[in-house]
């Protein structure tokens, strides 16, 4: 095949998915109430994004980014401190690993008691989950700083503090971005779940749940697509930022 078609290859999968979906609904293979045609869902998406769904979309973005930002502000400095002292990290490793392995959704009731029903609860549970993911990655990034690079800085007369800021910080950046991308994905998952269940009035999770409750299937699919697009978009944005600021990553 001609090389210049290669950038368009991903479109084939998307077109295929819609073709199968359209064929299934056109042939009435599935109950049209459970699976509306792609046109109906598309129409609901388009109309929704200019109305209620668009508002929910923005709400979810706000909560997810708030949670990720709070997590980053707490986890990055902490991760650097932990990573710089291997003994300190080893002594806290089990605790971090334990809570990292605890499903953050299991913490909802606790955070509800602490923060009440509102944005604080959703954002803080998501931040809690993201903190541990980011912390773990930053600490590992610092710990795995190339020994030669640290020695090179030392041999040039860099003090311990200088080595930390001039070398370790940069060395940990690629891994920090891995943590941030995982963190933002996890935050989105937690936020959407939280929006479904904790007395929520808005957000994509609420939108999906409400549409399902009212049996408005095209609207539900539209909300699911919006959530998918948001997840993909956030990951893409973080990747672009990473490529811009950590240009040496993987080279």
């Amino acid at each position: 095949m001609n090389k210049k078609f290669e950038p368009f290859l991903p479109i084939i999968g998307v077109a295929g998915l819609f073709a199968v979906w359209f064929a299934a609904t056109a042939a009435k293979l599935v109950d049209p109430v459970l699976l509306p045609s792609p046109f109906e869902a598309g129409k609901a998406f388009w109309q929704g994004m200019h109305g209620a769904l668009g508002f929910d979309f923005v709400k979810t973005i706000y909560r997810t980014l708030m949670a990720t930002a709070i997590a980053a502000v707490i986890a990055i400095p902490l991760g650097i401190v932990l990573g710089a002292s291997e003994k300190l990290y080893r002594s806290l490793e089990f605790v971090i690993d334990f809570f990292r392995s605890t499903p953050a959704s299991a913490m909802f009731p606790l955070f509800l008691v602490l923060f009440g029903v509102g944005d604080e609860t959703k954002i803080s549970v998501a931040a809690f989950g993201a903190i541990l993911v980011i912390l773990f990655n930053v600490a590992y990034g610092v710990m795995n700083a190339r020994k030669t690079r640290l020695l090179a800085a030392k041999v040039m007369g860099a003090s311990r503090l200088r080595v930390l800021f001039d070398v370790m910080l940069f060395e940990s950046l690629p891994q920090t971005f891995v943590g941030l991308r995982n963190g933002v994905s996890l935050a989105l998952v937690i936020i959407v779940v939280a929006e479904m269940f904790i007395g929520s009035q808005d957000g994509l999770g609420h939108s999906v749940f409400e549409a399902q409750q009212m049996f408005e299937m095209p609207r539900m699919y539209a909300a699911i697509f919006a959530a998918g697009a948001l997840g993909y978009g956030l990951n893409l944005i973080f990747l672009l930022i990473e490529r811009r600021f950590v240009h040496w990553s993987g080279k």
Partner: protein
Amino acid sequence: MNAAQHALRLQSTGVPSPVTGALRRPHVTIRGLSKTFGKAVIYDNFDLDIPRGELISVFGPNGCGKSTLINMIAGLIPVDAGEILFDGMRLDEIKFGYVFQNYREALFPWMRAFDNIAYPLKMMNVLPAERKARTERLVAHLGIKLDLNLYPYQMSGGQQQLVSIMRALVVEPEILFLDEPFSALDYEMTLFMREQLQKLFMDSGTTMVLVSHDLEEAVYLADHVLLLSRHPAQVADFTLVEAARPRTDATLSDAGFVRTKAHCLEVFQREVRRA
């Protein structure tokens, strides 16, 4: 070789030396150096004088402690016992440079080559404008044609190692340590880099200590080859290389050079066979 001979040779071969008056005084004096790794005694009461303004190659059997020696002199590894002085001064009182074998991991990939070279000046609290001027002066002086606005990962291996060497030279060190600097490069690049290093040495007259695992390279570049025995390492021989500089491909087939190399090989093999 006595001091008079030494001075005579330097005169006759025209090896440049920055401190003509201090030729007879050794630059580095190592006394009673001891180092053990676990049960292995690498150095036991080791003494060595490194002459000023010379390029010394360190060569010896595998694991005899070639790199350990320069790492101890450069303060990368602590000594168990002994004293290493530079003109009677301690390491923290002098300026020195160190070139690592692994240039890829020794340079800072987040900085452009120019900033990599200037970095040691920042550690000496030189102001930015002065840092830039001194780095530019070094680059101009060496006459090296490289785009220093590139990041290290955009350069070839040889270019990266050249940047590492320039980074070590920018502080105008009194002594430069090189730990197998060319062994990660392909042969063509190695030959090119040998010429570059020889040129840098002849231009700067800086005392250089080079660890090499290639006997031809060790002899070709050196004023003296330090041949070490198996550990606990002792000086098996401190062989003078008399060939005039600049040395070229023709030097490699010169009778004197071939003889010196054969002599070093003989000493080396004697030390390897010694159980």
